[in-house]
């Protein structure tokens, strides 16, 4: 493989030489390799679960220029895994928080900030200032966008993704290797694959996978070892088992194949079916809804309303409003527990599952079923702020 980074023009100060001494004495790095690290420009898309360990280690290792793309604000649910951000950062822009930490770890790193969504209009322009792209995003539309932008600009895409306690990692879009679309030609239809916000994620898992990404980025810069090209690494943290699968370049790939049909960036929201990252109400299921304030008012005047909670028992344990618990998946077999003549208000965490439940109930003859808008989270926000949110 041709050398990706030319470090011959980079210089290291005495302070930097001392800082990187454990690198410099390794034959796989040496002064020459450290100069390549300094000359390298790496773009981290996302500064969340994967982006946190990734950016921290790349900064510590002495990557000279780090680009960060994020538009998000730190919230409490991030802190369980996004180790770039501290409790005191809640409410701040992730970019501001990230830059503070990265600069504190290594003031010799030049950081370029992109306070934006990566989209089809800005992606190629943003990528143009970098040598390697590391994808730490959290939705299919951006995954395909990053992949296609990498293929079109001829830049490697160091990839990882996570779900619950499993992760996948690979390097896509190198000259000889496969791209993300060679592995997965099309995204799943909206709603079929749950997001981390719906399925949860073990806090250390993005740590594991983000560090694997950082390792691969550094190997690409140094030009050493065996990069994770043409191989998909599967990590199962629960079994602590690492498995490796072969990924071939698909000659019929629409973006990197012999006769590509995708020659410029497309509308990725349309390609993936528009879908929020969080578990918002599915746009496909339109059902009658009731606002939390309205439900509260009617319950307070003793109206006969049956509250049905379709979350899982472990969620009920965290917080509940004393609804009758039947998890969505059990509803078809336990529907006999419900009285179709009564008014039923169904709720879940944020409204998606209850919409499906109401849709199912109405098709089963329950004419008086409605879904609580925004779920128990909205109830906690608007009716009873003493309740915990999760």
């Amino acid at each position, binding site marked *: 493989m041709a050398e990706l980074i030319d470090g011959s023009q980079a210089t290291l100060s005495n302070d930097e030489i001392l800082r990187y001494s454990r690198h410099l004495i390794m034959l796989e790095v040496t002064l020459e390799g450290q100069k390549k690290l300094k000359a390298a420009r790496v773009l981290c898309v996302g500064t969340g679960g*994967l982006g946190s360990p990734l950016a921290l280690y790349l900064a510590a290792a002495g990557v000279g220029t780090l680009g960060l793309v994020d538009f998000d604000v730190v919230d409490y649910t991030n802190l369980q895994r996004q180790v770039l951000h501290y409790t005191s950062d809640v409410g701040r822009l992730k970019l501001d928080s990230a830059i503070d930490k990265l600069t504190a770890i290594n003031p010799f790193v030049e950081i370029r900030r992109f306070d934006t969504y990566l989209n089809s209009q800005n992606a190629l322009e943003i990528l143009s200032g970098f040598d390697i792209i590391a994808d730490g995003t959290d939705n299919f539309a951006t995954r395909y966008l990053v992949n296609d932008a990498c293929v079109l600009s001829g830049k490697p895409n160091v990839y990882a993704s996570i*779900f619950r306690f*499993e992760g996948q990692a690979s390097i896509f879009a190198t000259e000889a290797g496969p791209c993300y679309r060679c592995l997965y030609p099309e995204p799943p239809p909206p709603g079929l694959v749950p997001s981390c916000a719906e399925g949860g994620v073990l806090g250390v898992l993005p740590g594991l996978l983000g560090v694997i990404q950082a390792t691969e980025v550094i190997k690409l810069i140094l030009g050493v070892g065996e990069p994770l090209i043409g191989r998909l690494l599967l990590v199962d943290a629960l079994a602590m088992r690492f498995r490796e699968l072969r990924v071939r370049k698909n000659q019929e790939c629409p973006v990197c194949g012999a006769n590509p049909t995708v020659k410029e960036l497309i509308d990725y929201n349309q390609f993936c079916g528009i879908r929020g990252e969080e578990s918002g109400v599915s746009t496909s299921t339109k059902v009658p809804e009731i606002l939390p304030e309205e439900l509260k008012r009617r319950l307070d005047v003793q109206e006969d309303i049956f509250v049905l909670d379709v979350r899982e028992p472990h969620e009920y344990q965290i917080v509940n409003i004393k609804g009758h618990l039947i998890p969505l998946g059990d509803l078809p077999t336990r529907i006999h527990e419900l009285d179709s003549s009564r008014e039923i208000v169904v709720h879940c965490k944020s409204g998606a599952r209850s919409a499906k439940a109401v849709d199912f109930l109405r098709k089963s003859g329950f004419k008086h079923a409605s879904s609580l808008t925004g779920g128990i989270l909205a109830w906690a926000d608007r009716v009873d702020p003493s309740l915990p949110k999760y």
Partner: protein
Amino acid sequence: MSVKVLIPTPLRPYAGKQSVIEVTAQTVGEALNDLVTKHPDLRKHLFSEDGKLRSFVNVYLNDEDVRYLSKDATPVKETDTIIIVPSVAGGR
């Protein structure tokens, strides 16, 4: 013969929460068929309505993608492992 199928986390809720399922088959296609017969909820996650394997789900026989072997007709041996690898996008 009996072959192991590894079920990835996102699909375990549709497979009785199991991570490994033993099926009886001579080919990869038969193995997947036996799998969705035992766990019908898996069917819509693995196959589209016209019965084709979904394009965001990859099936591997050991470490090789069956698209580059003989697809459904790929023969399986007792020691083989079939791995289902769906795309996941999480990262934050």
